[in-house]
């Protein structure tokens, strides 16, 4: 009798859990209706984090623990913005001086102490602790109240949110595979297209919710139309998910193995995506040809491209590769900005595997982000692709509040091209050999 009752009680709890699950999470996500629960949750987290920041500041005043001094992530050095001309030449153009090496050595050592590029490939340093263990710097010892909140936070995140999110993810992947297989059976036609679009959006929305995402879309009237190219800054694979939950796109991406590859391949069944190997990407003509064919057909979905080519940590927008801007067609820029204090969406692919990344995302508080759809842009007459790319880049960076860097995202893995060094040399040479002073006319 005892066992029966226990067993019965267990089943009852399970069924309540399932009902709650379906009503509160699954159905709203599928039909993209918001119950306001996530918003409330985020507000609570914000309040908690603000309280934590105050606690930490008080703790700094009281204890003066040296480790806390590094909490504020200001830079190491302060650079003066001078140009090569000003520093080297001054009033003495056209003349080489032994002191010129000093300028280069100073610039070089400044770069050693702190440079603009390498830190963009690591997660952003937070201004204040966000109560996650991974960003902890022994801060949980500041006060006992903070420690309690921190431990409580760990319990909530790992024991409540994580299982919930894992369930949701599993369910959404199953649904995706099942639904795409079903839709594939339909005869080709408008019904099939519409269905596959709905399936895609639904699964993406579920996916976003299952990773704890809370997205605010702005300016939805500018959403990309068929036959265009959608361009966005890249921070993580979540970008794709987030955009896909609000519209249907054809992806241009490199092939992945493992879990991500499985998801990609399921999507391939019903929609046209363009997938490459990274090494094949070198064959730019092939890429361009495929994209051009795709956008020529207005009935096809807009193409989604991330011109940076790799994940950057969302503090800046790096060089846009000009390939997507040479093809023609209308460009729809989209700016995506994550709020770092709830969780880090940046995927450092050199450090973490995809599964580790997903685990980190699921055990953060949430992923809160803003997506701005920007008005479409077209290449102007006589404008070359690089200039156009920079124009689009500036617009996206301005909207998202990120800085603009001329450096190539490929520097994450590769070395700098020699041509940049040659540019520097050329510049210096122009200063040193001003015409007339050296006699032999223009050599530079």
């Amino acid at each position: 009798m005892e066992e029966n009752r226990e067993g019965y009680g267990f089943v009852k709890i399970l069924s309540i859990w399932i009902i709650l699950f379906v009503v509160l999470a699954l159905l709203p996500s599928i039909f993209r209706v918001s119950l306001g629960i996530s918003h409330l949750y985020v507000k609570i987290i914000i309040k908690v984090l603000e309280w934590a920041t105050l606690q930490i500041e008080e703790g700094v005043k009281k204890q003066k623990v040296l480790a806390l001094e590094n909490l504020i992530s200001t830079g190491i050095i302060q650079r003066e913005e001078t140009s090569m001309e000003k520093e080297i030449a001054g009033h003495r153009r056209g003349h080489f001086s032994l002191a010129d090496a000093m300028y280069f050595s100073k610039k070089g050592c400044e770069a050693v102490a702190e440079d603009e590029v390498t830190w963009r490939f690591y997660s952003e340093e937070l201004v204040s602790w966000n109560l996650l263990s991974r960003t902890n710097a022994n801060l949980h010892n500041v006060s006992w109240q903070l420690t309690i909140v921190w431990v409580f936070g760990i319990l909530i995140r790992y024991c409540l949110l994580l299982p919930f999110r894992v369930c949701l993810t599993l369910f959404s992947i199953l649904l995706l595979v099942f639904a795409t297989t079903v839709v594939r059976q339909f005869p080709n036609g408008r019904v099939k297209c519409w269905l596959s679009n709905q399936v895609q959006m639904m699964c993406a929305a579920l996916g976003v919710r299952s990773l704890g995402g809370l997205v605010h879309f702005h300016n939805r009237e500018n959403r990309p139309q068929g036959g265009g190219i959608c361009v966005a800054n890249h921070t993580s694979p979540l970008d794709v998910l987030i955009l896909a939950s609000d519209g249907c796109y054809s992806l241009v991406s490199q092939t992945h193995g493992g879990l991500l590859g499985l998801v990609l391949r399921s999507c391939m069944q019903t929609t046209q995506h363009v997938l490459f190997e990274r090494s094949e990407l070198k064959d730019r003509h092939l890429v361009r040809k495929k994209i051009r064919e795709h956008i020529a057909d207005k009935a096809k979905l807009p193409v989604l491209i991330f011109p940076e080519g790799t994940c950057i940590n969302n503090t800046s927008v790096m060089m846009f590769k000009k390939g997507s801007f040479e093809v023609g067609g209308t460009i729809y820029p989209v700016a995506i900005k994550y709020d770092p204090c709830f969780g880090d969406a940046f995927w450092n692919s050199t450090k973490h595997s995809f599964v580790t990344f997903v685990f980190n995302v699921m055990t953060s508080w949430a992923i809160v982000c803003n997506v701005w759809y920007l008005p479409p842009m077209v290449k102007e007459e006589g404008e070359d692709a690089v200039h156009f790319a920079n124009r689009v880049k500036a617009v996206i960076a301005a909207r998202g509040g990120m800085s603009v860097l001329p450096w190539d995202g490929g520097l994450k893995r590769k070395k700098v091209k020699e041509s940049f060094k040659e540019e520097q040399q050329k510049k210096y040479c122009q200063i040193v050999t001003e015409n007339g002073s050296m006699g032999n006319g223009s050599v530079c």
Partner: protein
Amino acid sequence: GEIKKETGFSHSQITRLYSRFTSLDKGENGTLSREDFQRIPELAINPLGDRIINAFFPEGEDQVNFRGFMRTLAHFRPIEDNEKSKDQNGPEPLNSRSNKLHFAFRLYDLDKDDKISRDELLQVLRMMVGVNISDEQLGSIADRTIQEADQDGDSAISFAEFVKVLEKVDVEQKMSIRFLH
């Protein structure tokens, strides 16, 4: 503690630079190799990048530890007024005018024989201008520079001559990096 005394950096600066050191140390073995430096894009495009990287490494070695890292960066600390008068008996601080000049001298002096020969000057000049100037023109620049600086007629620039040529130059400003506290 010792590093602080030797280099003059404050505690928080040392901590911050230490985390910079570890982030550059991809091999995670507590030392930096030349490749680690070359991974910094802004340094890689610097025409004198290789010479600067060389300045970090002690004679004949391929690894630099944190102490060496700090010592080299210490040359670029701005000179503070209160340091000039105190401690006349102790060793000269790393960021003194003389030591800054010495650092610049070593950038030119490729074989470390305390003299900048015409060849060495040519090589460094070549690094700075790339392929944009002919050998002839570069040679004449080098000759002129040595002529102006050379006082003892050995067609090479010694450290004393180097200092003399640059005595009007504001070395402190040209070779100081403003480190934040």
